[in-house]
């Protein structure tokens, strides 16, 4: 068992990060995927995660939203989400605590994962009505505003099966936003899309960056897009952050050899 006393019960101070990974290790069975990860994300910051396949990019997001970790603590807004307080110490969170603690986080997936038996509007209203307990009317209003934001208001009564990939992904973004998250996670949200519709999704994300004070963590293979909109880019290699920095620095003047190799390999593939 790990000695938990080295982790504070709560992060305090003037500049508490919105998301904070402290010494986090994630393993699937005997396979350690991420090791001793330390990563802080400021409120309102847009951080892109890049790296070769299997380097643990998706796992970083999934630890925030879907997976349990083997070591370390993750804090959101200063509060631990992976652990809860008991007798003045931290113990692994139970399911209920974990779910509640993750409420300020929203996630969008590579394959959209819209609910097929609900229309676009119903997809967006589901969380506000069923989880936040909002009235149908208020939830509808909020959802329609968000569908407007992502440019899908004219398709609000369509089921996902009638929407293109780009349209589905925009609805999925609206659905996540309807929960009013503080943190948004995007896992390769354009990878399953045809090239000609990628722009409609990236434009929505650009709009979010420009107009909303969301903290975002985005895994992407689109280097140009990451360079455009990120405050910081993290290059993952073998379950560790090999190099990170502002996009201009990381893309134009990478310091580490592995970063250089990866970037030139990506460039020549384009």
């Amino acid at each position, binding site marked *: 068992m790990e000695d938990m006393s080295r982790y504070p019960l709560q992060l305090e101070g003037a500049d508490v990060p919105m998301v904070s990974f402290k010494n986090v290790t994630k393993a699937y069975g005997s396979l350690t995927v991420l090791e001793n990860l330390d990563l802080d994300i400021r409120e309102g910051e847009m951080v892109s995660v890049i790296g070769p396949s299997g380097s643990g990019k998706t796992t970083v997001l999934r630890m925030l*939203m*879907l997976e349990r970790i083997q070591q370390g603590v993750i804090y959101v807004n200063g509060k631990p989400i992976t652990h809860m307080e008991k007798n003045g110490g931290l113990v692994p969170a139970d399911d209920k605590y974990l*779910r*509640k603690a993750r409420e300020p986080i929203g996630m969008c997936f590579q394959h959209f994962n819209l609910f*097929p*038996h609900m229309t676009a509007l119903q997809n967006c209203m589901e969380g506000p009505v*069923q989880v936040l307990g909002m009235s149908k009317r208020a939830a509808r209003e909020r959802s329609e505003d968000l569908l407007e934001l992502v440019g899908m208001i004219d398709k609000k009564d369509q*089921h*996902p099966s009638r929407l293109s990939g780009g349209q589905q992904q925009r609805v999925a973004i609206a659905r*996540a936003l309807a929960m009013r998250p503080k943190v948004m996670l995007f896992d390769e949200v354009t990878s399953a899309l045809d090239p000609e519709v990628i722009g409609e999704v990236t434009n929505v994300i650009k709009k979010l960056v420009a107009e909303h004070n969301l903290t975002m963590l985005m895994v992407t293979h689109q280097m140009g897009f990451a360079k455009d909109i990120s405050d910081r880019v993290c290059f993952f290699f073998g379950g560790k952050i090999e190099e990170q920095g502002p996009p201009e620095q990381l893309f134009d003047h990478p310091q580490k050899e592995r970063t250089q190799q990866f970037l030139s390999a990506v460039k020549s593939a384009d």
Partner: protein
Amino acid sequence: MSYWEFLVEQGPRFVDGALITAVQFALAAVLAIAIALLAGLMKLSSNPLIKGSAVIYIELFRGTSLLVQLYWIFFVLPLFGLTLEKFTAGFVAVGMNLGAYGAELVRGGIQSVPRGQWEAAYSLSMSPAKRMWRIILPQALLNMLPPWGNLLIELLKGTALVSLISVADLMFEAKQINGSTYLSAQTFGTALIIYYLFARVLVTPFMRWLEQVMLRKLGRTE
């Protein structure tokens, strides 16, 4: 006597029997669906006690014959102080038996819903119960409908056994008619046709209709 005369004469008894069969079928189906849902969900539980009792139930009722189960419920349970009327014992036995088969369909249907749906529901912070009822089960149901159609027809055929504890269903009436007229071909031929029509004119089209309704809900029909 022509077949027509036979029908006119025995018609009311066939109708009476068919009605009882219909009621037995409906009650057994409701029970089977409820048990299937319960046992199917329990079998997916992470609690070994809950899961274990579902496994035992399913094994027990699938691994032994419906007729023996019927006799147990009607003749043996009273020895332990639980007496059921024959009518009740009939549909309870059929419902419990087919419910065990249905539980496997429910389990399979739920497991066939893609992981991403669970994850999306979880990422909206939905409680486990809401995830199941609102997101997973409706999709599982659609996957399950075709095999449920077959199961309900099995259930219909299974109800014929209740005649053996003297519930006056179609089979029971047919045996009575045969005993008094000795017109076996006409009697059991008629029963055969009624069972067949029941399955093909009521059950199958109903399931098709249900599937269409579900598909429409998914926006998948043209």
